[in-house]
């Protein structure tokens, strides 16, 4: 494993350079925005990577909480299976199909539901017990970094193109901001908590955050219907060549994110191993028993 890392690092670096080249030279210039739009090749892949990181954190947190007891672990698995099945079938039912927002295909909703369920079981299989918490911390930190990139590149893009730094009604940017806030508070909690159960508390907070995100999305969405706002990032379809570069960029970012996560994960596991070794040492300290005299009433402890 250790030898693979430098090789993968070099490959990823090359991939990133290639993606950079594609983004700046090969991709066609946008008809409306000119060359400024090219920041999209950093902005959007960062966003998708951040969301993936946070999503993995959510799954890891739920599993960490659920797997502490056998009964809840089983219940959680059945709920995930049920949600997967419902998510796979429901979009094809006519009444549900009508409710789907424009542009969302039933097959993509179904596939997403199945992928989510599969991810839950895969993570549960390869990460057990404490490893789930290490995964949670890793993805939270890496996610926050990528999320910060999104929040910085967003306004940088918006200013020259639309003349404003920020649009409060922009649903994606604002949801991303809230997500960033939630996960920064998650990291602060981990840092400031003195409790022996810090990991459980952090997992609880991650669950709260995950419940919050859809509500944020819908609250801003409705706000926007009453107060139309400029949409940073534009909607509509994309030139296939641009889409190609975008996906390429995203792959490069994912490789980079994977490497960073792997590195951080290993670091955290090592740190915990050291802690456990020290704890074990204090447990096995040789006892030297001095003569114990019963103290007379000394009063206060």
């Amino acid at each position, binding site marked *: 494993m250790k030898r693979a890392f430098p090789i993968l690092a070099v490959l990823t670096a090359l991939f990133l350079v290639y993606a950079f080249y594609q983004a700046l030279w090969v991709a066609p210039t946008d008809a409306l925005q000119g060359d400024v739009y090219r920041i999209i090749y950093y902005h959007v892949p960062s966003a998708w990577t951040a969301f993936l990181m946070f999503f993995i954190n959510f799954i890891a947190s739920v599993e960490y*909480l659920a797997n502490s007891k056998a009964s809840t672990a089983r219940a959680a698995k059945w709920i995930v299976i049920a949600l997967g099945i419902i998510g796979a079938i429901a979009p094809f039912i006519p009444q549900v199909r009508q409710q789907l927002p424009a542009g969302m295909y039933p097959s993509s909703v179904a596939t997403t539901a199945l992928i989510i369920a599969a991810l839950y079981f895969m993570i549960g299989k390869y990460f057990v017990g404490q490893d789930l918490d290490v995964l949670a911390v890793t993805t939270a930190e890496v996610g926050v970094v990528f999320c910060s990139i999104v929040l910085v590149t967003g306004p940088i893009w918006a200013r020259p193109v639309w003349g404003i730094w920020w649009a409060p009604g922009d649903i994606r940017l604002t949801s991303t901001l*809230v997500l960033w*806030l*939630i996960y*920064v*508070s998650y990291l*602060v*909690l981990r840092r*400031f*908590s*003195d*409790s*022996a*159960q*810090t990991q*459980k*508390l952090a997992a*609880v*907070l991650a*669950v*709260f*955050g995950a*419940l*919050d995100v859809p*509500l*944020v999305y*819908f*609250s*801003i969405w*409705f*706000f926007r219907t*009453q107060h139309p706002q400029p949409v940073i990032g534009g909607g509509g379809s994309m030139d296939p060549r641009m889409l190609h570069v975008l996906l390429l960029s995203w792959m490069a970012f994912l490789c980079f994110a994977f490497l960073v996560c792997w590195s951080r994960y290993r670091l955290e596991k090592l740190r915990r191993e050291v802690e456990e070794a020290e704890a074990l040492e204090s447990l096995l300290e040789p006892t030297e028993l001095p003569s114990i005299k019963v103290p007379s009433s000394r009063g206060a402890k």
Partner: protein
Amino acid sequence: MKSFWSITLATLAKDIRLEWRSKDALNAMLFFSLLVVVIFVFSFDPLAEESRHIVGGLVWVAFLFAAVVALNQTWARELRNQVLDAYRVSPAPANALFLAKALGNFILVSLLEALMAPLFVIFYNLRVLGPAWQLIPVALLGTWALVVNGTFFAAMSLRTRSRELMLPLLLFPVSIPAVLGMVAGTTNILTGENPAHFYIVLLLTYDVVFTTACLALFETVLQAE
């Protein structure tokens, strides 16, 4: 089931009785709320044409400040003399304690709002152009949204450093959709320009989701050392 509610009510009654006995903290909070309103009045010109459009936001930000002050003292009495240990050692369900504290905070924060709201009406010469009765569900649901999560995060902060700072730090991000709902809903009702129905539904959904989450996870938080 019967003993669950009897424990909740007994705890709530005890808290109200204790709060009533030493009115110091309560009076200080009331005065603080008044000060917040006054600061806002000086900062945001009440005579401006657009004041009706921003008052919804001002009112709820003021309520938020007052709520944080109230929420920070939720567990203060239980921390002295480690009374919380006495609760944990007993067979009483953790959720009964949570509900009692949340309801107590709800009453306290509503009291503060009842003081501040008329002041805003007076200083900003508010007239409600939309259906005024809708302000009641917005106020009730919005206050519960702040209080239910606030009580929960106050308990979480018990085991952290900088406890009083951790509470708003944890509470604010998660409360954003609720705050949006409260502010937009109130603004819509005041200006009468748009319906507030969706925001009421949003607040209701938020309350249901997070009350459930808090009840499900409070035991974990309470038993954390």
